[in-house]
């Protein structure tokens, strides 16, 4: 049994395209039939990962592209694959954010990766052909 490709979008890694990427992810998740809350969680995780790529992946070089593929795999499980050609970065190994200091000491930021990981159990990372490839299975 083979999976189904739902969408594939490759655009420059710029905030102005966030809406397009997110629309494709949301539509795919809706098509798959997730409940509203789950779709909102998937949207949030995708936003956090994409925005980090926009902000950090091409920091020291010309801005490259991001590719987002959605579909189902051989077991009819929903997946989102996000890839970029930026600096190697494995979000699964990022330091956890400060969740305990009080307001004055709490660091601003550092919540994006954490939110994505808390909302999605199954994320795998590999680097291949100079690409960061994140595979999100929901």
């Amino acid at each position: 049994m083979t999976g189904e490709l739902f969408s594939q979008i490759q655009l420059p890694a710029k905030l102005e395209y966030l809406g397009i990427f997110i629309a494709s992810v949301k539509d795919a998740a809706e098509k798959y039939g997730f409940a509203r809350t789950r779709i909102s969680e998937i949207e949030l995780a995708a936003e956090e990962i994409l925005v980090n790529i926009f902000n950090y992946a091409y920091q020291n070089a010309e801005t490259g592209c991001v590719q987002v593929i959605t579909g189902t795999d051989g077991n009819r499980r929903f997946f989102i694959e996000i890839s970029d050609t930026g600096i190697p970065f494995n979000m699964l190994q990022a330091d956890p954010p400060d969740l305990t200091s009080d307001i004055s000491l709490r660091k601003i930021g550092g919540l994006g990766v954490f939110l994505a990981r808390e909302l999605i159990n199954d994320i795998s990372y590999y680097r291949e052909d100079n690409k960061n490839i994140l595979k999100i299975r929901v």
Partner: protein
Amino acid sequence: MELAAKDQGGAVVVSVKGKVDTATAPEFGKYLSEQTDKAAKTLIVSMSGLDYISSAGLRVILAAAKKMKEKQLDFILAGLEGDVKNVFRIAGFLSLFKVADTEESALKQI
């Protein structure tokens, strides 16, 4: 995203509705920072109309809370519900801030 502010006797109530994502958060940040700059009393952020918030929005909230803390003024989050409340919970914000179920109950806390 829709923003509004009103003076409610003992507090300024800022309400934010719709979607705060990375694209809209800067505008929310500017608005909230103007409110905290001129704040002379409790600031309540009312979020009952908020459908979506990402970490860019949480950043804005924490920055505002820090400013209010420096000014030794109260900062209360009101009206958190559903998916949005869940994001605040995961981020540890529910134990970090004063939280009220509704704008009305926030006003009673002052």
